[in-house]
């Protein structure tokens, strides 16, 4: 009897307990919120009890600077050699000797580089890609952004191989020793990717000086994680039989790794390489603040002077560079060997690599010509043109004609949406937040997750950054909400219509390759600086994963389940609500998770245009070169990201395991 009765009584208890607990918890926190003026210590973290972590970190950094600068500066010197070479080669000309009688070896001719871009496109993707990449390089040249673009490109060219090699070895290490993966590599990667890029810059500046090398090292740190992950994933995905074949062929462990496993993992590795390149571009743009120069610096200068036209032009050059790098590296990733002919030993170089040979010849030829004919050395002023005035006129026109409407929209948003929400968040008692987040962690992942997320939340409070943390959460939250409200319906629409998917795909592809910087420019033009601008730019930046994951999630529901639903008499609407959506929900949640992380990264960058949150804290620290303050604020930002990430992942994992 008891055996029969047991399952029946267990189920309802399990499904009613949690809502009840949540009701009680929310009531408690609401009480705390209402009584926040009486219980001040619970609402606002007492300033007496602030743990001066930022000062400790500052002290450590100072010590490091004093005692290790000989070391870090020599790293700067060593890394400076290839970097300077690349900079000279692409952008600056080689100077041999000093003063007036220095002998100048010219940089590569812009004509040659454009031709090389064309040939690279042809080698990997055929005529269309060749026209795209060659054309976009030409576009950069004609816009008069050549030198800046080549500065940016040379930083990428040196940083990317460094990231790839480091990432590959770290990934191999993590794969060979699962323990090191679990306890060292994975947490490190999480931190590297969630700490905002700005926060990296401060210690770099301190240790490596204000030079392109600092920018390169910051870039390397930021852009390496995807390579590590891709290596680990690629190696883990090699079919067991291929690995066994390696052993049976009598490979030594090293032969097995380098000749069997890694080549078999090539497609995944190449996806990693593509991501490294795109992240490196993104970071190089941001790193222009610490002396990298290049296109990012142009944007920054123009934005500071509120020259929107110039900022737009530099931004477009970044977009052009991003598209070329993305498309060419993707084409290289998907290209498979097509060569069916005999590979004869001793075959001439130019027969095996016709495109490469031609590119080298063209580069050398045009550069030599450049010493005689100025046309080849520098982009002649006569053929460059600028669209800046056109942009300015367009903006002026919009401002003149739509100023009232835009302004009304902006003021409405600020007064009735942003400010109330902001007030609510900033007044939210820290103790209540720690409690609720801990509770969510406990429900979704047990005691360990609860302890982790509660501790991370508490960190934001005890370092005295509570108000700024909540300001960040509020802006991120609103942006994520909007991004989901826009992105999920678009994703659903794309999943239900192939035609709509085809239309929308190029747009989201392009949105995804654009460096975060570029989103700010057009929005600033219309809405000037402030929270509204930050929000709109963030929504535009973070909407992509919401669309993409929703579309993919619905589409990957097995067709036989849908057939089963149709056969059992479901209408289209019922099929969607009762079969497709529940099955796609875990994937959609992962998309929202990605949206949150991207929104967080973007909100921080928006500190440049006058938001008042953790990003501003990092920004101030950057200008004051106060590493402790910057790192603590950076950690607080990272922790917001990690909390959201862990909770969403736990939720998604639970939902997945329930679906089997």
């Amino acid at each position, binding site marked *: 009897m008891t055996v029969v009765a047991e399952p029946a009584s267990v189920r309802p208890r399990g499904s009613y307990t949690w809502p009840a607990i949540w009701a009680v918890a929310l009531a408690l926190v609401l009480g705390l919120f209402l009584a926040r003026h009486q219980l001040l210590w619970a609402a606002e973290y007492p300033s007496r009890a602030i743990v001066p972590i930022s000062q400790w970190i500052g002290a450590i950094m100072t010590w490091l600077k004093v005692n290790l600068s000989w070391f870090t500066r020599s790293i700067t010197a060593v890394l400076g050699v290839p970097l300077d070479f690349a900079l000279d080669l692409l952008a600056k000309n080689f100077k041999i000797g000093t003063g007036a009688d220095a002998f100048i070896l010219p940089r590569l001719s812009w004509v040659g580089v454009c031709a090389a871009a064309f040939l690279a496109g042809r080698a990997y993707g055929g005529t269309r890609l060749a026209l795209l990449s060659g054309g976009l390089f030409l576009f950069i040249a004609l816009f008069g952004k050549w030198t800046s673009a080549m500065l940016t490109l040379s930083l990428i060219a040196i940083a990317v191989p460094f990231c790839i090699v480091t990432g590959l070895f770290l990934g191999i290490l993590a794969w060979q020793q699962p323990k090191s993966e679990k306890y060292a590599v994975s947490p490190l990667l999480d931190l590297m990717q969630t700490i905002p890029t700005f926060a990296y810059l401060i210690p770099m500046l301190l240790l490596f000086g204000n030079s392109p090398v600092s920018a390169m090292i910051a870039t390397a740190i930021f852009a390496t994680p995807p390579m590590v992950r891709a290596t680990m994933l690629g190696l883990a995905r090699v079919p067991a*039989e291929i690995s066994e*074949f390696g052993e*049976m*062929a009598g490979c030594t462990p090293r032969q097995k790794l380098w000749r069997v496993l890694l080549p078999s993992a090539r497609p995944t590795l190449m996806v990693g390489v593509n991501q490294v390149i795109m992240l490196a571009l993104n970071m190089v743009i941001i790193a222009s603040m610490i002396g990298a120069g290049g296109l990012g610096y142009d944007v920054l200068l123009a934005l500071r002077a509120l020259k929107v036209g110039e900022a737009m032009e530099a931004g477009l050059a970044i977009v052009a560079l991003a598209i070329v790098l993305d498309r060419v590296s993707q084409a290289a990733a998907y290209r*498979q060997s097509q060569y069916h*002919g005999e590979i004869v*030993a001793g075959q001439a170089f130019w027969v095996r690599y016709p495109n490469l040979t031609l590119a080298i010849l063209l580069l050398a030829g045009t550069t030599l010509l450049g010493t005689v004919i100025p046309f080849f050395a520098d982009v002649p002023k006569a053929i460059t043109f600028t669209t800046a005035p056109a942009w300015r006129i367009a903006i002026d026109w919009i401002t003149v004609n739509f100023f009232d409407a835009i302004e009304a929209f902006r003021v409405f948003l600020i007064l009735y949406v942003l400010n109330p929400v902001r007030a609510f968040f900033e007044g939210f008692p820290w103790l209540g937040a720690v409690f609720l987040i801990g509770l969510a962690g406990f429900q979704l992942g047990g005691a360990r997750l609860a302890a982790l997320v509660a501790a991370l939340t508490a960190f934001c409070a005890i370092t005295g950054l509570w108000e700024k943390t909540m300001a960040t959460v509020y802006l991120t939250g609103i942006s994520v909400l909007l991004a989901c409200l826009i992105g999920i319906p678009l994703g659903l629409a794309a999943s239900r219509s192939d035609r709509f998917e085809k239309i929308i795909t190029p747009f989201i592809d392009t949105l995804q390759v654009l460096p975060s910087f570029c989103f700010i420019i057009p929005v600033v033009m219309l809405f000037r600086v402030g929270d509204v601008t930050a929000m709109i730019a963030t929504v535009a930046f973070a909407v992509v994963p919401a669309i993409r994951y929703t579309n993919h999630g619905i589409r990957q529901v097995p067709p036989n389940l849908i057939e089963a639903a149709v056969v059992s008499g479901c209408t289209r609407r019922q099929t969607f609500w009762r079969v497709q959506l529940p099955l796609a929900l875990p994937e959609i949640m992962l998309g929202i998770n990605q949206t949150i992380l991207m929104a967080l990264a973007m909100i921080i960058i928006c500190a440049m245009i006058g938001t008042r949150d953790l990003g501003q804290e990092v920004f101030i620290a950057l200008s004051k070169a106060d590493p402790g303050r910057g790192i603590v604020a950076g950690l607080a930002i990272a922790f917001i990201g990690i909390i959201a990430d862990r909770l969403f992942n736990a939720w998604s994992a639970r939902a997945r395991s329930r679906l089997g």
Partner: protein
Amino acid sequence: MTIASQDGPSGKVGDPRPVKLACRNVWKLYGHGAYEFIQRRNGKASHAEIVEAGLIGAARAVDLEIRQGEIFIIMGLSGSGKSTLVRCMSRLVEPTYGRIEFEGKDLLSISDSELIELRRHRMGMVFQNFALLPHLNVLENIAFPLSVQGVDRATRIARAREVIDLVGLRGREHFYPRELSGGQQQRVGIARSLSTKPEIWFLDEPFSALDPLIRREMQDELMRLQSVLHKTIIFITHDFDEAIRLADRIAIMKDGEVIQVGTPEELVLTPATDYVAEFTRDVQRAKVISARSIMRPLGRSQHAGTVSADARVASFSAEIVGSKKPFAVVNEEDETIGEVTPDAVIRLLAGVDQSGAPA
């Protein structure tokens, strides 16, 4: 366990060929504390004890002797432990207990470098899903094991071309695996495993991923190759028909245990358990059973022809039924040792047991 080690009744004890590879009480247990568990019991444990200890017995107390030049088939359904066992034999999986002997030498005690040498020169393996390297073309894939050994380019290309001819892939040298059909890919897999001239050839369900027509063609191909190469073959399959077609001897596995070893004929005539009988029930007996098994002592009747004692009934059934007279049965020395009647053949073809009950 005692059943597992028994040799068939039909004189295999007297098999003159040397033992190439042997398993002596080999165990592979998965789970926490598996090694201590089996050590403590000195290599003896019942199924119940293993389950109680929370372990999974992928291979249990396996005793096998594989002789030089024979096609030895390990047959079992999925999860029966056949793949684990063959991986124990090649040490892709480290057995928990027991000995694997390669020409009498314990394979488990040799060093890593010796093992690499052994695999480079004396073992070859073919995989169910081909396991071809996607970034190499056919020629490079086949030459890969030689390249790993450090054989110079000209020699390994020449050798690769030899085996390409052997498996009939000429003209496809520069194709990539993704451009080939399943059957062609497995030909590459076979050629690759033969490029090092191995003595022991492991085939792990090599034809299971192919469709039935191609599978049959590849089985014929394998028989043709074996008639030229005379390798010691250990062949895994879950398909009893395939096993019967190819095998000299078959080991049947269930739940990690070898429950019977014998020639196809022995399995059909004297199944050790109901489980084996279940497998053999739908087999076309005439293709398995030899003249020796259905002959009777010589009578005085006239003989319309002679058959060898080992000839399968299917190979002469049409003639004997047509002639309506018994055939004489001769042994290897050409001595007449008995006779087969058309009646006996018809009974066999009709599925009537010698005892009279339907099989």
